[in-house]
């Protein structure tokens, strides 16, 4: 497959004469390694046409894919104290934050959006993995709290879409505290009688998995996503044995009872709309055209008198 990268791309470069463009024209599938036109990848929602591998879908595109006509609004994230621990490793945390902000154009690793799905109001809280690995600190926690409150206010279901390496270490214990905080948030949605649905995307690990992401009424996962608590390397170092085939994938979690459905990206919107509709519009039993004749002897319950006569 590499001959494509090495041969075709330079040729296109030569033909087009614009050295920057070819990098954007071709995308290599992270599953099978095939090269695909960027345009085709985009049209196929970043799913490989060759092997069906679900590649990373930018969060804007994901929201556009899910909401009716791709239309939604986002809310401003609540302001949080920046760098409460004054944390620095090789870099200052504040510098890492600024870099991530300029790279993604976002305040932090979460986007809270609302719009309609299948005509019904829906709130979605989606993680941006590109923002410091989707790690969860105060801002992400506040985003989920805000999303939950918005859902309750709009009497709308909440869909959480994690894509996260877990807690944001640079916020120390406060990142750990997002586990109970986000749990309180989703409890508010559940107590309002509204569905809380989790759409697990690649990857979802650590403190994110071990809190709100495992507390959904329904857990839906994209094919092949990596979902787990402990990281692969940590487990390997602990157990000192090779990990089972497909360990911590969506399909593995389905086998072990942790998710309800593994759904292809192309079917996600329809599936979400259907389950939310079933949960929120219970309807009334449909009556048959001809009412059942309750006097029909075969169905009638014998009266005590009839019982005595039978004796």
């Amino acid at each position, binding site marked *: 497959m590499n001959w494509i990268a090495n041969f075709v791309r330079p040729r296109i470069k030569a033909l087009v004469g614009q050295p920057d463009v070819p990098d954007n024209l071709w995308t290599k599938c992270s599953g099978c390694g095939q090269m695909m036109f960027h345009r085709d990848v985009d049209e196929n929602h970043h799913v490989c046409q060759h092997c069906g591998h679900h590649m990373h879908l930018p969060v804007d595109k994901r929201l556009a894919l899910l909401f009716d006509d791709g239309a939604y609004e986002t809310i401003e994230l609540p302001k949080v*104290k920046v760098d409460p621990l004054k944390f620095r490793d090789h870099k200052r945390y504040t510098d890492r934050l600024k870099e991530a902000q300029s790279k993604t154009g976002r305040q932090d690793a979460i986007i809270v959006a609302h719009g309609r799905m299948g005509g019904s109001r829906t709130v979605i809280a989606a993680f941006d993995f590109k923002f410091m690995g989707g790690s969860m600190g105060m801002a992400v926690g506040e985003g989920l709290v805000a999303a939950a409150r918005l859902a309750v206010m709009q009497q709308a279901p909440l869909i959480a879409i994690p894509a996260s390496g877990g807690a944001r270490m640079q916020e120390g214990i406060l990142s750990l505290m997002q586990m*109970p905080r986000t749990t*309180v948030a989703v409890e508010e949605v559940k107590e309002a009688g509204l569905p809380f649905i989790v759409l697990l995307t690649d990857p979802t690990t650590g403190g994110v998995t071990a809190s709100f992401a*495992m507390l959904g009424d329904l857990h839906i996962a994209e094919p092949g996503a990596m979902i787990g608590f402990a990281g692969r390397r940590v487990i390997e170092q*602990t157990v000192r044995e090779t*990990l089972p085939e497909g360990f911590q994938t969506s399909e593995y979690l389905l086998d072990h009872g942790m998710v309800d459905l593994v759904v292809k990206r192309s079917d996600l919107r329809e599936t979400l709309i259907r389950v939310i509709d079933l949960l929120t519009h219970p309807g009334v039993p449909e009556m048959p055209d001809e009412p059942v004749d309750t006097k029909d002897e075969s169905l009638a319950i014998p009266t005590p008198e009839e019982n005595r006569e039978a004796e």
Partner: protein
Amino acid sequence: MRNFLNFEQPIAELEGKIEELRHLGDDGEVNIADEIARLQTKADKLLRQAYSKLTPWQKVQVARHPQRPHFADYVAGLVTDYVPLAGDRAYADDKAIQGGIGRFNGRSVMVIGHEKGGDTQGRVKHNFGMARPEGYRKAMRLMDMADRFRLPVVTLVDTPGAYPGVGAEERGQAEAIARSIEKCLGLTVPIVSVVIGEGGSGGAIALAAADRVLMLEHSVYSVISPEGCASILWRSAENAQTAAEALRLTAADLAKLGVVDRVVGEPMGGAHRVPKEMIDALGAAVERELATLSELDVATLRRQRREKFLAMGRDAQI
């Protein structure tokens, strides 16, 4: 035989000398007793000096001290008529998390906590306090029982973290921790948590989403171990000391951040030096919290617990 930590070596040497002199002693030579007294004063002074300014990394060592009192010690010292309860009714009994009913100052309580084990054999049996899903599910079962019989819940946190294993992942480690947090937050009875040693990440918060969270003076509580943090952010576990400082994992820092409600002082030289004193101090601290909480009605209790966590971190500053 006392285990000495690295930074306690000068104290260890002095105490060794004192011990030798004691064996020599009593042959009528007065100056031996004087010498012992002199060395003892010096040792006490060194101990006080060392423990009054422990670095975060040194606190990590103290928190992990093998002779530090464990769950079993606190239960033995504080709870009468203790009945240990076992099993999650689904898969197994996880010995990394212990729990049972008993009387604490006369009232029935449900006490749950991590047990690291006291000796090599015990540590293996209790998996070094690293629980698997069935441990958290047992804790949840006991919390349900506490709710049903209106028993306050006391949890003692002492774990390096949840166990990272294949079976644990298969059986839903993340789900078990998430549900356990949810269970703590939903309790209709008071819950008081005390970090008695190591509060290791998700494995700790699973039992510590409580009305009141207490920490012993030299215990630590963190989102990741300093070693783990160092190997990720500094790309070398050797920077654990630096990571321990950056993470703000000491009781004093966590109290400042508003994550911990109260710090319980330890005996001079740490809980492992005078376990009895530590156990009594913990008992008194828990009693004080339970007494206040027992005056609240169910709705207030649950609302305050949730509001406390929602507000947490909003004004946090070191």
